[in-house]
């Protein structure tokens, strides 16, 4: 009996091994995103965008004669999990390239694993400056670092007549990095920096921080966090009667969701975003933008998610372009090829420039940043 069981086990194992070899008919791309936890909404949008890119590429015959296959793993919005997921994708699934990991703290946790296994990663969302300045040559970022956001915002601070600004930021590398970069830019402009309040990524009640900001003498609050926490902040600010100008950064706001959930409280708020799905004709690549938005709606996803999901779409197209250019699905070849790609992203051309210490530079493309304002429940574009 035991022997028979052993035989069954052997057969099962052999079949599994053959199935594994059959899988090599595809080219795998690892996707490391938060699908549960504090950033579940944003990570899910990015993954859905990534699927659109994979389906589009496969419908056109794939790359190097093979279909691409996304191996999607949930990093649970937790840096420890993000590093574990990266290790699993590289060692067990044998992916030659990754996309991830949404949050700056998540990406920073993955980075040593990329060095260890010499596997490149396309960073689609994270904005902490540290990611491309610490000398990790396996990082290729298509999202803007917060210093680039701050620089883009610089042009409009005079028009807005900012005098004193408070910050309310998520207490991680993303939020603190943003507060630092924006404060530096604003101090140069002669703007006074008031309070810098933080909130835990899982916090649901920000009333204490908002009460403090309500009593300060600043006229503007810069808020940095993802959509779920932002919605709560808008609701709680309204409940406290906070009447200051609110400007959000980071590009994970999904303004339409804020309009839907915060109602009148959203009017007059401004948001720095990295995509303009409301005005496809004003984007750098209108044809591709229209295709993406149509496909997104066809799949029954909410329009609000577009401002987040386009990054997954661009990220997978970036990885696929590099595999094609490399001519083979191997990490070293893909890493070299990433330096030579030039594709039309939904938010500008994706071309990597060197960033960070000499000899071990990371790649950074130069995406656009836009400022939008919500008025009467509608999104309007402001010129920067």
């Amino acid at each position, binding site marked *: 009996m035991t022997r028979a069981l052993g035989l069954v086990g052997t057969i099962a194992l052999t079949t599994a091994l053959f199935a594994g070899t059959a899988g090599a008919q595809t080219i795998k791309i690892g996707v490391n995103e938060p*699908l*549960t*936890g504090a950033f*579940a*909404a944003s990570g*899910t949008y990015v993954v859905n965008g990534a699927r659109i890119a994979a389906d589009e590429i496969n419908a056109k015959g794939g790359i190097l004669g093979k279909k691409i296959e996304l191996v999607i793993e*949930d990093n649970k919005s937790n840096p420890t999990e993000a590093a574990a997921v990266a290790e699993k994708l590289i060692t067990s699934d044998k992916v030659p390239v990754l996309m991830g990991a949404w949050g700056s703290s998540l990406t920073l946790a993955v980075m040593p694993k990329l060095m260890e296994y010499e596997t490149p990663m396309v960073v689609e969302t994270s904005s902490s400056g540290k990611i491309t300045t610490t000398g990790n040559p396996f990082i290729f970022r298509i999202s803007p670092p917060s210093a680039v956001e701050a620089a883009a915002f610089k042009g409009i601070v005079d028009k807005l007549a900012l005098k004193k600004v408070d910050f309310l930021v998520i*207490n991680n590398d993303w939020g603190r990095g943003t507060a630092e970069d924006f404060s530096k830019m604003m101090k140069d402009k002669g703007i006074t920096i008031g309070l810098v*309040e*933080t*909130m*835990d990524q*899982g*916090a*649901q*009640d920000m*009333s*204490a*921080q908002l*009460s*403090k900001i*309500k*009593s300060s003498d600043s006229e503007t609050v810069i808020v940095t966090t993802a959509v*779920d926490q932002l*919605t*709560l902040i808008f*609701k709680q600010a*309204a*409940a*406290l*009667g906070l009447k200051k100008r609110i400007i959000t950064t980071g590009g994970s706001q999904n303004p339409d969701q804020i309009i839907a*959930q915060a*109602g*009148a*409280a959203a009017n007059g708020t401004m948001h720095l975003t990295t995509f303009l799905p409301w005005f496809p004709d004003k984007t750098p690549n209108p044809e591709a933008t229209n295709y993406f938005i149509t496909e997104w709606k066809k799949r029954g996803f909410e329009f609000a998610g577009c401002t987040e999901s386009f990054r997954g779409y661009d990220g997978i197209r970036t990885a696929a372009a590099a595999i094609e250019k490399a001519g083979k699905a191997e990490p070293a070849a893909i890493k070299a090829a990433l330096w030579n790609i030039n594709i039309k992203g939904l938010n500008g051309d994706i071309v990597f420039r060197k960033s960070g210490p000499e000899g071990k530079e990371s790649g950074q493309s130069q995406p656009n940043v836009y400022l939008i304002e919500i008025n009467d429940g509608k999104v309007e574009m402001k010129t920067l």
Partner: protein
Amino acid sequence: MSEFLQHLVNMLVLGGTYALLGIGLTLIFGIMNVVNFTHGVLYTFGAYIMFIVVQQLGLNFFLALPVAVLAGWLLGAAIELTLLRPLRGSDIDTTMLVMIGAWIAMQSGTLWIWGGVAKSVATPFPEAPLVLGPVSVSWLRLFVLAAAAMLILVTYLLINKTSLGRAMRATFQDHDTASLMGVNVDMIYTSTFAIGSSLAAAAGALLGPVYVIFPQMGDLAAVKAFAIVILGGLGNITGAVIGGFILALAEELGAGYVSSGYRDAMGFLIIIAVLIFRPTGLFARAERVG
């Protein structure tokens, strides 16, 4: 000064819900002596019941609350009957491990059914807050505070003034003697766990619409509930209520005047202090130990 008043108002609305979380757990952890790791999941469960009844079935918000309480009661009774009853008499570690397993399984269940993306529930309350001079507070939060106060009062009366409450206290003081006096001990175990669970579900149902609803929402709530129970003294309902307000006050003033980054740490600093200086809780009566 107006900032301080606003912090006090915030403390009141937050403290009411903390107290509700605390009394549910103090019944189970304090009186029954079960380290109940499913308390947070029952909180989450109550919030999702709210979501189903209001958003998916389109029924009335106020009707959804009793539905959530009842559903929490039933789920609590089911947990007691299937997991805890067979383990009665085994040591606290075994029960604790089983409850950890139940917590993980149930949390994964909510993730499997509803997905990881947060849901929100529409409420019939006006968006504009109630403004009283320098302070303002949303109508929804006021309703939550009132409902929490009512539930706390009902629980207090149930435990202290009814024959069921007397039987509960007797059972957990001396199981054998209570049994000899004609108390149906099995029924008492099940109903105590079910009542504690329904209070957790009620807290989730009340707070779900205030915040957003997602599978891990109960984790932080459960940690805070344990903190409140320890603060107030195990099994002490009045202590749990006061403990809830103390935790809320510490968080509000800590975030307002010390540093918002350490908001959640404030409560736990108090717990450490309590454990060092008054290990039986702030409101424990003198006990005979010999």
